């Protein structure tokens, strides 16, 4: 088991399988708020579903309405379990907090080197830690 320190942005603890992208996400427009499927054809994750996953992406972008889309995803039971950013910005930070989705950023080891799709990780947004299950690294 590996524990990596990071900065806490939104409180709470959750575990799930990693879904990783190197591209920023605009929750307004890129994500279907009913299903959690990435609907932007040009996005690296096009067609994939973020529901229940630990979504790892560099940062948010686009309209500030994206914060509310995260809230809608929670209401529709289609939200990611937790999120990890390289560097969080206000749209995703605010969206995560109002939705109660754990969010951390600035991991002490680069998540894009360390993590791959399908890894099981536990994000602790209260303590500021990411725990990677044994045998994966």
């Amino acid at each position: 088991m590996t524990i990596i320190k990071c900065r806490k942005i939104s409180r709470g603890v959750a575990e799930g399988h990693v879904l990783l992208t190197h591209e920023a996400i605009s929750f307004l427009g890129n994500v279907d708020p009913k299903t959690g499927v990435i609907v932007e054809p040009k996005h690296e994750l096009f067609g994939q579903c973020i529901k229940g996953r630990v979504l790892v992406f560099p940062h948010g972008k686009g309209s500030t309405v994206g914060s509310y889309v995260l809230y809608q995803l929670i209401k529709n039971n289609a939200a990611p379990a937790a999120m990890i950013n390289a560097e969080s910005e206000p749209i995703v930070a605010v969206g995560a907090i109002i939705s109660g989705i754990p969010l951390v950023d600035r991991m002490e080891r680069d998540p894009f080197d360390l993590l791959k799709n399908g890894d099981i990780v536990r994000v602790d947004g209260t303590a500021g830690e990411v725990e990677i299950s044994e045998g994966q690294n």
Partner: protein
Amino acid sequence: MYLTTEEEKTLQGEYGETLRKAIEILVALGDIYGADSLIPVRSAQIAGVSYKTIGDAGLEWISDLKGRVRIPAILNPAGMDMIRWQEMGIDREFAKKQQEIIDAYERLGISTKCTCTPYYLEGFDAGYGDHLAWSESSAVCYANSVIGARTNREGGPSALAAALVGKTANYGYHLDEMREPVMSVTVDFELSGSDYGALGYVAGKVIGNRVPIFYLKGHPSGDELKSLGAALAASGAVALYHVEDVTPEAVMSKFERPGEGFTVEREQIMEVYKTGTACAGERQAADIITVGCPHCSPAELENIAGLLAGRHVRKEMWVCTSREVAERYPDLVRNIEGSGAKVVCDTCMVVSPATNNYRCMMVNSGKALAYVPGMCGVASRYGSMGQCIKEALDDDN
């Protein structure tokens, strides 16, 4: 970030879930931007009001909140005139959802006067050095630049969080060092009226989100500065600008001229009038004329009433203002509406879906020119107040 004992308790949830989330938002933003503490704010202005903008997602969030704001808080324009929406061509379903959003904000103790010019309203007349948590980009630009108050460009949820907690995180434009100009904009010819909106439209694209200082000929009025700032915030992301010898911080601080800068030529201003984002075909007539972006001041209403006196408009014309200002000047409103123009309150041409029903809009606002084509899918032309009114009085020939 340093938190007081009370703030720490709030963050631990001792005062309920709504306040816990509110302060968590402020703390998270403070951490992201390197704030040292939370500071009290005098008022909040909350964006995220039009159903067109926030949709069901936003409505659900606001409806779920419980509590009361601790400081005066007011709303950004909604998607319709809250009383005369039917005359605007708003459908019943939209009106119902819009009313639900307003009601949800009202339950939190927020003033439901919807305006982008809160500084004209009682209780929101911010002063020099006041810390605020305002959202709407032109109001932020006016408060920082023309009044010398201090606010970041808050998102809807962070402004609401500030209203509930009565504080905001101390970063960005709350700090002296972030308010110094870093580039100069020089204009060597006289400007008047809508020229300032055109200047903002041109200069904002170059300035982006930096703090400029303008070196102008002449002394712009408050309304002219309002147009300049609104356009700077829309075509760029300017939240604070200075005008040498005019705006309060430039007068008091005597800033050194920044090394970086550019000059705006007369031709660049004229170009905005000639083409704007021209309606398809160069001479296409406008089928709607809108003024009041940002919302009209009393002086602007008086000017419009004078220009329309004894005349009759032949095209749809909206004069957008806040309900409080309209109610304060019933004679001016009567005179304007006597011409057939509509005094539209609580909303504007940018955030209302009603503008989608038109083909080509004429505006006297650099901000509207920047937003209407993209956000409403309606072509736009630019003119002075006089040219806009002339267009409204003419028929299509």
